[in-house]
């Protein structure tokens, strides 16, 4: 497999993870999702490979996955956007989704916290399991899902309020107990933003630079102690220095949260991620007939140095995309 530290660290954790009852170990303050723990099948963490459509897509087992998708298809109206995506997202690692625009990587990441619910025409088929729970099951409340799974968007979207209120909003709507000042400070520290803003917490967040705004959005997502952080091209609107700071931040954060990042930028995927999924867009006869597919998924170093699929190789070597 891989020889880098995060992977071996996670392997160690996996050993201590044999008991699935120890599930919410890292988030003492996080609200429990009703029905979550009992719904985790005991055998799940040991299942070597989830059933997948493309056998060559996934070349190694992921133990104790955060997300497992099976034959996930998303369509907008009558036209399918992404077809047949089956993959497992490991815990406490960074998983990158790369691919040319229109390949559906953002669509897939938005299935992980049910953001696609906001688009009335979007239809999701197949399953997305989060710690074994089917996120699109009939009894799942999407609000409960989003409490556990934070998200950072392409364009920084701070609320038009003070820095403090931006962070405090999530904990307030979740009814988190404890000193709000402490929660805010901790979240800002985790996003390594505290020293930049500690003297102007009451200032409007719109006065910050773009990179600071994006880190504020990360801090805002962290304030609710999520289990997973989804990042949808978080650096595409930022300059290289801000991008570097956010990448450093991701490395620190993966100690405590699992991260899924969608990125346009192959180098970014290579720098930050432990695993990479490469998507492609099948050009149809018209604009609407474009369909995204998962081509290859595996450890990042293998995807970039020894891809199995010729399309992956051409993409990572810069021949198209």
């Amino acid at each position, binding site marked *: 497999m891989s020889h880098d530290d995060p992977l071996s660290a996670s392997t160690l954790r996996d050993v201590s993870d044999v008991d699935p009852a120890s599930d919410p170990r890292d988030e003492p303050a996080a609200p429990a999702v009703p029905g979550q723990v009992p719904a985790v099948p005991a055998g799940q963490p040991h299942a070597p490979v989830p059933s997948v459509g493309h056998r060559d897509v996934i070349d190694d087992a992921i133990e104790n996955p955060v997300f497992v998708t099976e034959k996930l298809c998303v369509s907008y109206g009558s036209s399918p956007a992404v077809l047949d995506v089956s993959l497992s997202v490991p815990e406490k690692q960074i998983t990158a989704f790369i691919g040319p625009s229109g390949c559906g990587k953002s669509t897939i990441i938005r299935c992980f*916290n049910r*953001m696609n619910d906001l688009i009335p025409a979007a239809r999701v088929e197949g399953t997305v399991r989060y710690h074994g729970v089917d996120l699109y099951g009939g009894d799942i409340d999407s609000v409960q899902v989003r409490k556990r799974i934070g998200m950072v*968007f392409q364009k920084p*979207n701070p*609320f038009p309020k003070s820095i403090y209120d931006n962070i405090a*909003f*999530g904990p307030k*709507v979740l009814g988190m107990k404890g000193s709000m000042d402490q929660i805010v400070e901790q979240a800002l520290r985790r996003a390594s933003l505290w020293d930049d803003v500690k003297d102007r917490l009451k200032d409007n967040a719109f006065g910050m630079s773009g990179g600071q705004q994006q880190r504020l959005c990360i801090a805002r997502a962290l304030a609710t102690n999520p289990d997973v952080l989804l990042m949808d091209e978080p650096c595409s609107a930022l300059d290289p220095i801000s991008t570097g700071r956010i990448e450093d931040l991701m490395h620190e954060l993966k100690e405590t949260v699992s991260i899924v990042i969608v990125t346009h930028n192959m180098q970014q995927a290579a720098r930050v991620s432990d695993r990479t999924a490469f998507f492609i867009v099948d050009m149809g006869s018209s604009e609407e007939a474009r369909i995204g597919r998962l081509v290859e998924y595996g450890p990042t170093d293998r995807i970039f140095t020894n891809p199995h699929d010729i399309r992956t190789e051409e993409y990572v070597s810069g021949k198209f995309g």
Partner: protein
Amino acid sequence: MTTATSRPVNEVLGVPPAAHRLRDTSFVLLLATLTSVALIVLAVLLIDTAIDGVPQLSLSFLTSFPSAFPAKAGIESAITGTLWLMGVVTFVIVPLGVASALYLEEFADGTRWWNRMIEVNIQNLAAVPSIVYGILGLAYIVRGPLSLGRTVLAGGLTLALVVLPVVIITGREALRAVPPSIKEGALALGATRWQAIWRQILPASIPGIATGVILSISRAIGETAPLILVGAATFVAFNPTGLDSPFTALPLQIFSWISQPNDEFRMLAAAAIIVLLVILVILNAVAIRLRNRYQQRW
């Protein structure tokens, strides 16, 4: 290697066709002329009113009740009547307008025929002449089901109906001006739809909503026709004492004085027009200031 001598502009860029410049200039002149026609008409009206009205303005004019004698007549009851109407209108249009705008913008499924029908109807109602609302008010508010009589409440409710469509439309625009990313951000943090709307979208749109409300009130203040129809009195020698009190209002007082044969009353009407204009300018200034100061640039 640099050349010290610069070549003539026309040699480098070519000679501009004379017709282009002529067309540009004449177009600007045409626009300026048309604009000045509108401005001149307005200026003449204002100056004419000011010449007649300014000499009549005095503290006693503002604090006297109407009288059969021009020298004793004033507009206190008209001002207080207008203030009462403004109060009723505000009280009605803010909750109704904001709630309707929120429903249509955030909850209504635009693909359903009844929601589209509501939308089209509101657009239409905004353009219905106010006298039609006066007839409605007379039939259903003054008499008919509500039977409130010729009271402040009846007049205020009728004026509220006149401006409600505009409040709803401007309210929807203010809500729409909040980018969807704000709602997404709130929902992604685990907020419910209600929390996202109540704590993020609505606060962010308040300056826009308030601007619409103020402009609507200033329109309601100037309305005369519906008040005539709902039967507001034109000669009221006392201030309204409550919602069930008879009343008059500034535009009604002006209308009543202008229709008097006596020239001195027309001077008083001009003075009342100035007072009304000053109130409107103040309201509009507040609205503009609110918009410029608090409106979020996304």
